[in-house]
């Protein structure tokens, strides 16, 4: 195995590990953000459920449950991609299915980020600090996912090359 191949494997493993951890951290932040927004009243659960405020508590709780279910799915996606990156960085023989999901998520961000710009400049008609922060956050998430996909591919190719060299 040439030193350059070994170096590439090390680099790809390191990038995957850090990107995986970062993506999981971003997932946790997504959930925290929702919880903070509900707690401070920025998000109205009734508004999400299309309900009037005088509806019964059970409906209110259902609305909350829906909101958190969606959040849990988002968190699960982040953790699946993140944990799989970590696992793949330790053992490149494990499944690479997470890369397919990562590509789908990239597509999601590619659509979502322009939409955020659209909402800022067209719907709101003003530059909103929160939206700018969201855009930056989403752009970073996109970068992390691209790094996961790229490092995953480099690691796969380097490992195959290393097997061919030995």
């Amino acid at each position: 195995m040439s030193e350059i191949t070994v170096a590439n494997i090390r680099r790809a493993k390191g990038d995957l590990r850090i990107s995986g951890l970062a993506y999981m951290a971003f997932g946790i932040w997504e959930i925290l953000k929702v919880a903070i927004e509900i707690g401070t009243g920025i998000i109205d659960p009734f508004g999400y459920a299309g309900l009037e405020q005088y509806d019964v508590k059970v409906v209110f709780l259902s609305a909350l449950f829906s909101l958190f279910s969606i959040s849990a799915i988002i968190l699960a996606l982040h953790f699946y991609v993140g944990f799989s990156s970590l696992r793949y960085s330790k053992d490149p023989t494990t499944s690479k299915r997470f890369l397919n999901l990562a590509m789908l998520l990239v597509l999601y961000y590619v659509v979502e980020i322009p939409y955020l710009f659209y909402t800022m400049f067209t719907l709101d008609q003003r530059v909103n600090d929160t939206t700018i922060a969201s855009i930056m956050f989403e752009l970073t998430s996109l970068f992390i996912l691209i790094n996961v996909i790229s490092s995953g591919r480099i690691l796969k190719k380097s490992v195959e090359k290393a097997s061919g060299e030995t």
Partner: protein
Amino acid sequence: MQEDFHYYATYCAAYLAGYTHDESMDICYSAQFVDLCTKTLLSKLGAPQDAATTQLQLELADSRTDILGLQDITRIWASFHFLPYDLYAQLSRKGRGYMNRYRLICKPNGPLLERTVNIANGTSLQHVGIAMHVLADTWAHTFFAGTPSLVINNTTDDFSEILTAEDGSVTTRRIRFRHNPGAADDLEQNLYTNTVYQSSEKSIMNLGHGRAGHLPDYSFIRYEYLPAWNNYESIVKDNPADYMKAFAQMIYAMKFLRGELDEFKPDTYADDTVAPYKERINEILTKRQINACEDWKKFGEELSGQTIEDFDLNKFQEEYIKADKSAKKDTFIGKFIEGALAQKHMVTAEIVKSGNVLAGIVKFKQLDILKEAGLD
């Protein structure tokens, strides 16, 4: 390197180069003194603090981390312990800030080593000792830089000791680190102390070989590790081989400084002189121990038939303190100070000349001193 090599091994090298016992004692004392001549000590002696050749941990902890503080640190460590190899090294796609640090990486046999030995020529034994300290450290401290820099001096935790069995088979054993400066390194458990990881680029924790602990200073160890600057490629350090080369090169350099040879050329070694003692020296270098002082001392005393005094930091202090102002430069420490200033100014001037600002600016007065000595 530590006292076993800077003091006792330097004595042995000086004696083998042809110096007398007393001359060898002066040389080896000066070589070891480089590791102890701090601003605190110089302040106590009433000596110029600019001549400091090292810094205590407390001094480092207290030092400024702005550009002036960093330049002060770099001047000391790059001049005496991590002599830069190539101040004009080129790398593609690297910014100026990175290159300033990369160019301070220490390796043996660079142009600055030649200048270090040449400016010691025709001067005092103390200056010879300083030059020998710098020379020896270029071998031990290879691949680290004498400036606080995460991107150069950081390493991963992947250190492996390379062990060769009696039958010639090679195995590796993982080296573990802990951050307990109060605890001695445990050679049996392969447990060593290193500095804590600090993500700040200019943190003191990223000065020199702190991240590798004392591994570069142990003559017996061969190890593999990943430095930050080498693009994920690992480095293998063979300390026994490097220390042997350092010893042979010191003898060669001191033969030149004694006047036995006409010039000093890098990458040249007094192998003929070392040959009769090579096995004995190899035994000392490869013996698995934290401190080889006793073995080097015994070897030195066998060579010269004289007793080598243990190093005493206070030995020459009273002489310097009691001397008149005009007579101080003729004392032992006075001569050491002259040598230290010349070395520091030479290295700083060379770093500045290369366009690197990390060592600061050489004062005009100091440049004149170098010009007068024909050393600019």
